């Protein structure tokens, strides 16, 4: 994937310094900080609406070795209202809505994240698994528990960032219209 094909929908805020490689679609209201590394090497990445992707986050679309020789290129889909906190590494191919990836966590490519999950700070999920809804992973040995509710949305924080970030950073302009994007899908 040599050619970069970045689609930014109106309302998204993507800092110019962020490193985006490959075929990436960024939904409305999503904030991407500078120093974010998104790498769509195995196929396109689609990021949903109102996601917050913080500094030093690395999102990589990479296939496990045994799945690399399939013909149809898989798509990495990240849902809406997900929060990627500082320095987390996410390679999971399917991520639902309202998940929180806390600081310095690692989610491997064989993991499927459903909705409302929290992956705690520093937790490493490497084995093939499907996280059920509202699962919280925490602690040094990745204990799991089921939360009663989805994690709270970071609306206030995102509103502030929407105002503040353009003052100090160059922003990539949205290059797709919403209608066109919907038609494309």
């Amino acid at each position, binding site marked *: 994937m040599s050619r970069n094909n970045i689609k930014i929908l109106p309302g998204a805020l993507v800092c110019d310094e962020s490193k985006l490689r490959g075929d990436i679609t960024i939904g409305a209201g999503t904030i991407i900080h500078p120093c974010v590394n998104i790498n769509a090497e195995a196929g396109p990445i689609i990021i949903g609406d109102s996601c917050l992707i913080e500094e030093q986050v690395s999102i990589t679309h990479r296939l496990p070795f045994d799945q690399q020789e399939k013909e149809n290129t898989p798509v990495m889909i990240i849902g809406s209202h997900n929060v990627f906190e500082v320095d987390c590494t996410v390679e999971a191919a399917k991520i639902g809505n309202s998940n929180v990836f806390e600081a310095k966590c690692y989610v491997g490519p064989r993991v499927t994240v459903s909705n409302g999950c929290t992956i705690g700070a520093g937790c490493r999920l490497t084995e093939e698994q499907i996280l059920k809804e509202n699962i919280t992973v925490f602690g040094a040995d990745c204990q799991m*528990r089921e939360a009663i509710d989805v994690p709270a949305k970071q609306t206030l924080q995102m509103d502030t960032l929407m105002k503040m970030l353009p003052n100090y950073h160059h922003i990539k302009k949205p290059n797709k219209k919403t209608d066109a994007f919907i038609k494309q899908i």
Partner: protein
Amino acid sequence: MAHICGPEVVKYACHCGLLRSISQLYFCRHCSKVRCSFCVCHEVDSIFCGKCSENIPSAEARVKKNRCSNCLVCPSCQQELWPRVAATKTSANPDEPKQVVKKMHYLLCQFCRWSSRDVGIPDQSSVTGFPDRENVYANRLQEVLDAYKAVVLAQKQAKENEKKKQRKKYLSYTDITGVTAAALRKRIGLPADRTHPLLKNKPKKPDNAVAVEEVDDLPEELFTEPVNLLEVTSVDQRLLYPEAQPVKMDKLFPVHKQLSIKRSLRCRACEHNVSKPEYNPNSVKFKIPLFAYYHIPDIRIVTVEPLRAGQTSELIIKFTNPTQHQTVVSFLEIALDEPEEPEIKEVEETMDSLNIQEKQHASLPSMTSTSQPSSLLSLGSHRQPMITIKPRQIFQTLNSTVEIPTSTFILPPRDDAAEFDDSGDTHNIQDDPKLVKWRKSNKAFIRLSVTPQEGLELKTEIVCGFAMKHLYTNTIFTQQPQKYEHKVKVFLTLGNLVGSE
């Protein structure tokens, strides 16, 4: 501090034969000895809550079972719970359409996102008013506890009576007059039998625990349903609340936070404090910080050449002088097998010299007698070593030899400003260039040669050792600092043996 001094490859020998890294050792400057945590008395100084930083008297802490009454910890991950505000709209009067926004609180764990709403604890209007779970067996426990207390009291009473009987060797008035105590009491108008007021209202004996013969069968679901690990609690979670030991996740309940203590450490030989914290729970400083790290040169391994059996490798270690006084370091051969008698003598000698000097100080200058006597001096002359701790053998095998250098080297005093001073090292110290490789401010890099023993297997961990003798300047006695030669045995773990070329 462990991460500054770690990994623990350099170990110092305590008097008792234990090997510890310098950060775990204390230095008693009254007996000029290194002390490990086993050679000091641990005393509880103050009890406090680590979350709300409140000092709690020990009697109160005992009543509260060493738990803070305000702070709660998460039953799921044992971290602290924090109250969260949730605004709920409640109408005070159902007829009135106007709704009043009321501040309600619930507890949330920031780490595992457990909340008091998970288990159905209703939101509270005040932050501290969360209900405690009642212990089903509280009454029974109290009964048993009371019974045991009564037993203790009765035993104490019996012992005291026995003592009284032994003491009764003289005649009492009642014996002479023939009036017994009981008769006397009756005459005065008191009840005849006189028992201890605490013994009178004897608590009733608790019912015996009865073993149940018929045990209910295990529920059928246990064998048929698959286990959902998300619903079952872990061992940690169960033991956090030993009274109930909840099995299911939905039975978890916030637990009161256990209190922490500040402890002071006392040298067992001379009963002087080696570590005493400040009373304030917010403070992390010490009133008396006699840590070895502040008094004994710190040794760190800089580089080691690959270690080969029977071949000499160069070892470079760094010495750092932590004190405000210049010191001279020399090396001695380590002797593990000898029973360390000479060292005892040396200790006693230094002790004697210490005492003599103290006595001189106390008697000689008229200043001290006219003005207020220095408390330290008066203490020093009275305090004799309480226990003589016998040195024990060090159990550490050495499989390499260090060539002990004959020359010594000087370590300049620590200067905090030196780091910001670019003027360079201006001290003109004549060093043995074979020994000292390089020096900067209070640090010196020393070159030693190590030879692992012949015939060792590959990947054997190589340990070498030497005794370090350094000049220690003792500043307890303010009139004039005294200098001692302090000896400590040092063991260095150098790494594994590699193949012989």
